[in-house]
């Protein structure tokens, strides 16, 4: 569906995208993750034809922007990282306007209004919408022409967890019903994890990692995590004798972070040891590794720094 080959884009000498190649297949849901300034927006906007690469080529369905701009515009539904609408236009009118650019009737606007759950706001001015409602409208506009390719730049930034989940559901429905390809940029790992089969981690204009979440975690950051807080410090030799321990680190006197191959194997034995040493566990938290751990493992920095 999308073929990006050795694309570079620099802003006054600074390489926002640095010799990047990426192939995206039809029907894939791809998340672009990366810290601020990683180049996500720049990459997405080059695919959208809004920015031109300095070198390298981008082809969508085998066509480049130079050759087939009209065809490509009809193919895509996009939402930009920031757009403000016309203040004194209602939500319905805004949808009608954008629909007309695709030659769509007003019936489609009403369908979309329903799809994004803004029926009761159809007659409100866009200036009076909340941030979340505005993001939904932006998504609605992207969905108007039932595009085979959706490009959403941080569609859920600033939304409360509920609104975010609603938006996810819309996108998941789409995945089920139509064969849509989605490229989404985000700072939220849960979002990438929940929506996308494929995660591309971008940093300083380059791809750090690319693949399914589980595969990425396996290859870059093996293991699961047990965080433990105890009433007294645990003896070091007891810790080191735990089965399946990959590494451990101490935070303060009584807080310990263990990385283990398998929680279900290590945890029962850890609890036995605690009991036999009559050390009380104040708090235990077990979790699988997340993208954030992955990013720290790869760069030594956190994702949303």
């Amino acid at each position, binding site marked *: 569906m999308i073929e990006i080959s050795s694309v570079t884009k620099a802003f006054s000498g600074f390489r926002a995208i640095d010799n990047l190649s990426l192939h995206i297949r039809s029907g894939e849901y791809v998340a672009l993750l990366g810290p601020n300034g990683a180049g996500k927006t720049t990459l997405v906007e080059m695919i959208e034809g*809004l920015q031109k690469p300095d070198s390298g080529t981008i082809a969508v369905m085998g066509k480049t922007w130079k050759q087939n701009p009209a065809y490509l515009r009809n193919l*895509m539904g*996009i939402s930009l990282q*920031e757009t*403000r*609408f016309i203040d004194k236009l209602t939500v319905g009118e805004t949808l009608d306007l954008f629909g007309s*650019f695709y030659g769509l009737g007003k019936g489609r606007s009403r369908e979309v209004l329903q799809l994004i759950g803004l029926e009761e706001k159809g007659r409100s001015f866009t200036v009076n919408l909340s941030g979340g409602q505005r993001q939904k409208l932006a998504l609605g*506009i992207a969905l108007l022409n039932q595009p085979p390719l959706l490009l959403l730049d941080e569609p859920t930034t600033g939304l409360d967890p509920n609104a975010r989940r609603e938006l996810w559901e819309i996108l998941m429905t789409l995945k089920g019903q139509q064969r849509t390809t989605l490229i989404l940029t985000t700072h939220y790992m849960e979002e990438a994890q929940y929506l996308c089969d494929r995660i591309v981690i971008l940093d300083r204009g380059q791809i750090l990692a690319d693949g399914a979440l589980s595969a990425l975690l396996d290859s870059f950051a093996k293991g699961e995590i047990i965080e433990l807080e105890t009433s007294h410090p645990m003896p070091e030799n007891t810790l080191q004798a735990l089965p399946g321990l990959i590494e451990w680190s101490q935070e303060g006197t009584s807080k310990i972070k263990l990385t283990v191959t398998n929680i279900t194997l290590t945890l029962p034995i850890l609890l036995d040891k605690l009991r036999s040493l009559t050390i009380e566990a104040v708090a235990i938290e077990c979790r699988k590794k997340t993208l954030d751990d992955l990013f720290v493992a790869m760069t030594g920095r956190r994702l949303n720094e």
Partner: protein
Amino acid sequence: MNNSFVNLVAIQFREFIREPSSLFWALLFPIGLAGVLGLAFAEKGNVTNRVAVIMNSYSQASKKQIDFLQRDATFDTRFVFKDASRDQAFTQLKRGAVSLILEPLPAGKFSFHFDPQNEAARMQYLLLEKKLQQTPEGAVAEIHPITTQGSRYIDFLIPGMIALGVMNSCIWGIGWGLIEWRIRKLLRRMIATPMSRVEFLLAHFVTRLLLCLIESVSLLLFARLIFDVTVQGSNIALFAVYLTGVAAFGGIAILVAARPQKTQIGSGIINMVTLSLMILSGVFFNYTNFPVWAARIIQFLPLTLLADGLRAVCNEGAGLVQVVGNCLLLLAYGVICFWAGLRVFRWH
């Protein structure tokens, strides 16, 4: 020491200095404008009052008196007397090139033609009349107040106001609107759809034409009801001038709005264009107050072409033939600016 008040003042200065365009608009533009205006009026020192003198059989006899008026250095205001035929004199009055007409009568008498509603004309009359009393002939003056439609100051003013309205409405309405949409990234969002760009800009133009029509027709109706201002020439000619005027300023608006990405720069450019044209183009006063070389250029500025065209139709009874030149020039302004604007237009 890190004083908050000092900081609050300092940040504003930094903001100001670090935005080169604001420096230009705040400092250089007003200086430049003052310079241009100063240059334009420097030759004259004071405002010169032009008076048309009708040439007739008594003119020879009255010549001495007029020379006396011209020579008299005690006048604070300078007068320039221009000989003209009766028709020429009244046309000049209609165009605002003169506001007073002096007509020699037998036995050293004079009759004054002017619009008593026009403050400047009344002043000129009073000064001249007083001086004439001092000539050896001790002339007696007759006053002929001009109340004929098309010759009063209001008749001069209304077409100018309509032209000004068209300019402001187009440049602010279209230009400012486009710049704001650009800043909101709305243009960028729109061109990511299959929307036709030419259609988009033409839609702005057509909207503006309709809005301008509403504005201008209300103004004209008001002038008609209150001041009995009428259109003496052909309505088709009037509409042709008007339409091409909107085309000219629509095109100019698109050119003006083609690049700016910041409100300060946008409003700066718009202000520069509209203010300069308003000052130069003789909306309120005839541009012959400028030196001849300047007036020769000014007559081809779009606002002048529009205002003069409208005045010709409204006050001098012009038909399509007389204003076709203005129409073509206005259309050329529109087409060239639109084309140039479209070429350099920054959609994002």
